[in-house]
């Protein structure tokens, strides 16, 4: 396994000085507060490196993207080979690369979610899902739950609990937001005007909030009764993160549309997807090219995604996530009991774990102190008092052990 650490000749301070100018000073300050003021210089396996050659155990994984570790060797080899054989391709063409990945995805994703639209960034696929739901049902409204975070474009922002979104003026009208886990509120909100009910089945950035499986089942039947489509965003919970390929398998509820994130390429290529049922594809059949994306379904991206899906199937990292997740949760719960003043609670599933601290400041300090110990973690974006632990799903017990030691020490320090 290539594990080369490349040191950079540039002085980090000089680069940060340039970053302050070209991006913003406040951005660099924000990184400093969390101890993220280092320059990332690639990664390998469960680790990433900084420009000075220091290695960190990557428990951030770019918000659940590097499920197969950093720069997975097998994906890299396929990518390099394909690079000399194909390229992006012309958008509108029905390329064989798109066709083959579509077949591969329909086999990979459980149930009847056989159809696909390729996006680029998380959020892209949510835009596509909202358009498909409105287009197919010819209904204007969406119902969503509080505490979600779906992306940065306007459909996604309208659905998200995202601070500052009011700065952008009027977003997409027709969104009703109901409390999470409240069936009665959902029942009142879902009507014959509802195109879709949209939620993350587990709200990663909001202290991994989830409901009991009865809630999801009731939402499913409310959707069935009203003709609304059920959309699950599994950008962070998909590809084995919670101990099964997708979290919805543990709920016994099938969505009509599923959003999957960049974990689909193992974090080697910006590509996401919306997968959906054959029934909904009718809309794209009768309105060809009504929704396109130049970089979506990039032929090279398709090769990279197929290589990654092969790796997922070969390694079945969801089993490891389920096994190690149980142990990790036990260790963290014990720590929570010990540091009851600092930790409010611990939540999560598999290797998607959230620690809720007493204050936002404490969460930032936690990140900073963990980095000193060689572990990279980041705070939640909806509940900013939380710190998320989401390592590579191929992480070993030894590395988990080291992580727990660092967390223990971190909790004593903050």
């Amino acid at each position, binding site marked *: 396994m290539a594990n080369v650490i490349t040191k950079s000749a540039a002085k980090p301070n000089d680069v940060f000085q340039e970053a302050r100018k070209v991006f913003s000073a406040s951005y660099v300050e924000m990184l400093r507060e969390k101890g993220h003021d280092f320059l990332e210089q690639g990664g390998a396996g469960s680790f990433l490196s900084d420009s000075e050659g220091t290695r960190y155990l990557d428990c951030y994984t770019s918000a659940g993207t590097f499920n197969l570790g950093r720069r997975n060797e097998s994906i890299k080899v396929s990518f390099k080979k394909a690079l000399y054989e194909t390229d992006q391709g012309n958008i509108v063409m029905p390329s064989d690369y798109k066709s*083959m990945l579509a077949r591969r995805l329909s086999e990979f994703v459980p149930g009847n979610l056989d159809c696909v639209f390729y996006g680029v960034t998380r959020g892209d696929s949510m835009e596509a899902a909202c358009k498909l739901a409105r287009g197919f049902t010819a209904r204007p409204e969406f119902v969503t739950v509080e505490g979600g975070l779906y992306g940065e474009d306007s459909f996604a922002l309208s659905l998200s609990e995202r601070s500052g979104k009011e700065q952008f003026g009027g977003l997409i009208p027709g969104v009703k937001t109901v409390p999470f886990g409240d069936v009665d509120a959902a029942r009142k909100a879902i009507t014959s005007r509802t195109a879709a009910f949209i939620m993350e089945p587990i709200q990663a950035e909001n202290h991994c909030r989830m409901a009991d499986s009865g809630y999801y089942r009731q939402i499913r039947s409310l959707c069935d009764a009203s003709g609304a489509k059920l959309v699950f965003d599994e950008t962070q919970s998909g590809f084995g993160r919670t101990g099964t390929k997708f979290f919805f398998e543990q709920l016994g509820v099938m969505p009509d549309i599923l959003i999957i994130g960049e974990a689909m390429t*193992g974090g080697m290529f910006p590509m996401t997807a919306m997968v959906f049922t054959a029934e909904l594809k009718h809309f794209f059949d009768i309105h060809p090219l009504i929704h396109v994306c130049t970089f979506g379904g990039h032929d090279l991206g398709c090769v990279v995604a197929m290589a990654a899906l092969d790796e997922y199937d070969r390694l079945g990292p969801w089993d490891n996530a389920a096994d190690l997740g149980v142990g990790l949760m036990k260790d963290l719960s014990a720590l929570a009991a010990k540091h009851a003043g600092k930790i409010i609670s611990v939540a999560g599933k598999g290797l998607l774990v959230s620690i809720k601290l007493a204050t936002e400041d404490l969460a930032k300090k936690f990140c900073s102190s963990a980095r000193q110990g060689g572990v990279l973690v980041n705070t939640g974006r909806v509940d900013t008092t939380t710190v998320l632990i989401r390592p590579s799903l191929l992480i070993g017990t030894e590395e988990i052990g080291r992580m727990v030691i660092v967390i223990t020490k971190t909790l004593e320090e903050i």
Partner: protein
Amino acid sequence: MAYKGSERMSIEERDYMQYLFGKHISQGQVTYLRTAHMDVYERNRKGATFTDAVSGKRFYDCFSSAGSFNCGRGNEAVIDALSDALDTYDMGSHLLLSENKVRFAVKLASLCPGDLNKVVLCATGSDACAAALKLAKGATGRNDVINMLRGYHGLQGFSLSANGKDYYKELFVPLMPGFHVVPINDLEAVRRVASRNIAAILLEPTLGEGGIHPATQEYMNGLRQICDEHGIMLIFDEVQTGFGRTGALWAMEQYGVIPDIMFTAKSAGGGVYVNGAVVYREIEPLVSYVEANPLFHTSHSGGTDLGCVVTGAVLDYIVENKVWENVATAGRRFKEGLEQIARENSDIVKEVRSFGLMIGIEYKYEFIAAIMSDCLAKQGLWAVFSANSPQVMRFQLTTAISQEDVDGILSGIRAAVKEMRIYLMLLLPLAKVPMIRKVLQNTKYQIKAGNWMRNLEEFGNRLFPRRAAPRRPRPLRAAFQRLRMRAGSTPSIVRK
């Protein structure tokens, strides 16, 4: 083993790929492209050309994925840079900084004129459009936007709301409020809506999907002045016009008008990756807004480590080779040739418009578009009409196109027009009848008719195979394969 497209594809394999595409993605898209012989499978993607895996035929790529291949397909400098980078980097971590990200941003800003010094990393054109609009709205505290009729910036929430053609929007309403659509090059129309409620004026310096309409110098000067008067942010979408396309690195340089915000994507990916960016002026209220809201737009797949390496290599290639010089010469030659063709066919061609190597030829009848695509494809020219103006056929060749290639393409267009005239002998008299004309312009009927003719043609090909056919088609075997496909099994000819 990851999938690798084989050099040549049999008719059966092609049918299977189309079956998969239809089953999993969109049957409508397959049918649509079949109509105009545009369902080709690209191989040997090199420079300005590719070959079709089924026929083995060489095509000039006159579309370049709407201007994504400005540095040529299979550009070795870009590919090598990406290949080397893969030994160290992956996408990198969202929100963390790296030397790649900072170096790329600094390089991009240094190549933009005036005080366009600040950068927001983005992933795609529509992502960058969203970032640009958020920046303008957030910084000015205003809601409304002026955008162009037939303008096109993408199909996501922000960019769709700013789309200048209702067809793309009407099935998805209600969209964002406060977009005022005006025709390009009409300053009076802008003046009528410009006020202190407007956050931004958004336009492509040349409407790409809108049918290659370059903005005039007077219009650009006027927009700048109106924006200055009302504190409106002027936004240029340089997604299609950037990276040397118009005869300068950015179209804005040709006008000498500096927008407050500009954004780019497409060719930023070098044809092998994905990247985009917003560049904005170091002025108030933009700088203070971003300082107060450093996370106003956080594109998860934007400005990845690999993407920044690739775009850096693309910029180096474009600048070192001064591709805009060739663009200017080749663009002129292409335009002169097309104008000659237009003069010879003034009964069907309305006008030729161009800006560097962004060239459009507009017909007098909308229904000619699909027939023209078809005739061009038969001549080995893969060209796509403008999405928001179907009567305009556009040519966006690689910036490194040679004079010989331009001449070759022109003679292909000449031959295609000749063939098209045969169809028109029948259709033009019919088109004079309003009702028939309505039918002819209906895309649904066009697709049906096109597919029917295509089926007839393929049936003929099967009965009387041509010499050039890659393998002797086996009608019986193909029929059998189709039956098996319907039964849900995978034909043995397609292996993973």
